[in-house]
């Protein structure tokens, strides 16, 4: 069970704006990438730790979160470094959805959740049932449960660990 504050995004928050151009060539590093994460999304986030200092645990978004076609993992590393433990949205852009799975950050599909939350609301997410409670408003949303493989990767702490464990144990990965 994870509990914390949420930030509500609009449609089409692009990967481009989550990590802006000047940081694409930086090393992928949760702590480093988190300092300027979301810099292009909102002017108030465009300063060092501008997003991170708000202490959000969740992001609630609408359509096509993290789209625009960027495959860089800085996006996911930055969000995790900033303390984000799950993102709920109507839909996610493919490239970052994949990266999120590989990093063990739940990108959770939940229809219409964006309409039922405001920035600052206290949410509670139960990964085992997929239930998301808005404690501030007393409402509840159901999300699609993750596929077993995705849960297994998250359990291992990401794809790197998952594969590393398999290689070390001499097991086939798939």
């Amino acid at each position: 069970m994870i509990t914390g504050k949420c930030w509500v995004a609009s449609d089409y928050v692009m990967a481009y704006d989550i990590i802006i151009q000047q940081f694409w060539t930086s090393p992928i590093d949760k702590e480093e990438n988190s300092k300027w994460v979301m810099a292009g999304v909102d002017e108030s986030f465009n300063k060092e730790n501008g997003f991170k200092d708000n202490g959000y645990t969740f992001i609630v978004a609408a359509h096509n979160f993290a789209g625009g076609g960027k495959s860089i993992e800085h996006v996911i590393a930055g969000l995790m470094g900033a303390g984000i433990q799950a993102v709920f949205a109507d839909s996610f852009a493919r490239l970052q959805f994949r990266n999120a799975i590989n990093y063990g950050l739940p990108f959770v599909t939940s229809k219409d959740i964006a309409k039922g939350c405001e920035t600052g609301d206290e949410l509670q997410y139960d990964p085992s049932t997929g239930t998301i409670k808005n404690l501030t408003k007393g409402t509840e949303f159901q999300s699609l449960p993750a596929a077993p493989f995705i849960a297994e990767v998250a359990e291992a702490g990401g794809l790197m660990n998952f594969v590393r464990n398999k290689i070390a144990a001499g097991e086939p990965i798939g």
Partner: protein
Amino acid sequence: MGMTITEKIMANNSGREKVVPGELVWVDVHTVMTMDYLGKQCFNKFRSLGKTEVFDKDRVICVSDHLVPPPNQKFATMLNEWRAVVREHDITHFYDLGRQGIAHQIMVEQGHVLPGKISIGTDSHANTYGAVGAVGNAVGVTDAAVAMATGKAWFRVPEAVKFHITGEWQPWVMAKDLSLHIMGMMHWNGHLIYKTLEYCGPAIEALDMAGRMTLCNMTVDLGAKNGIVAPDKVTAAYLKPVAKGDWEPLQSDPDANYEAVYEVDVSKVVPTIAKPHKLDDTVPVAEIEGTPFNKAFVGTCTNGRIEDLAIMAKILEGKRIHRDVNMIVVPASQDVYLQAIKKGYLTTLIEAGAAIDTPSCAACAGIHTGVAGDGDIVLSAGNRNMRGRMGSKEAEIYLTSPAVVAASVLTGKITDPRNL
């Protein structure tokens, strides 16, 4: 129920008889591409898996394209570190400065992607590989590192959407126009997220490999997982001198399942343009003819091929680019560059007043040469036009075909090539 070509490729490369959309499978990867600005991190991650040798030195393809030649010390140092790590792993195919090109162009023109096989790359436009009937997919460095170690990647089998394209291609209408037309039709609103897009029909069979690459390239910008054209005579002729490996033709079954089928009559498609900041804000060029601009850019993995340079040379032959327009042309690879020199296209373009830049991603991603500054209005044959994509957030980018760019640089205003 039959299978689509993408389902067949995923089944064949995961040792299964059949796969269905939604299923998660580990597949054998034919080639893994990584490039200069992410490659070192890729190799570092690969080593952290406890491996020192890649799964196949001939099938990990390394390309320098985003940072070459280095415009500053930071990039020069990154390139040196990248070269060291590639050499350390004794990679057979390293396309470094002097032999370089945009990674996706290299992967196709050098025969590293083959029909019926799966190739991945650490850059979003890896979808381009679908042009030869491969599953081409963009991944992060984690997936690439895993594939470098194991030769495998995980995939969710995608639902399929078919674009059946009929009719005759009209003069000066290019694959880019069809791509932008479909972008306008489908929007960026998520209809095609995670889907495999299959392009087929008489107008696709009539399309050369360059056009197929443009179409498949931009499927990532439609939100799709991959775009694919089944291999045919055009594919076989293209691959014959370059293919690195054997391949077998593969096609979708007649009773394969599609979530949606769209019919497009290409004879109705006209020169098309996306207006600043949104890829799906497309209109026929005729609607905004006369709009002034000051910079022109043709290159990229979308439209930097010999066929693109040829159509521009045809339009600009014996003419002069408008005095208020700066035009940069970037061949997609050294091979394309050399062919364009031999065919005289570059002479024509230079005589017209265009600047030719070394093959690279150049200004497309806004981190290399020729970037846009405040107030620039750029007419580009690239693939993305969101605010800030080519540099300044105070610049505007119109996206269109090389033919429209060539026609427009003569007048300094957006011009429909059919009116020349």
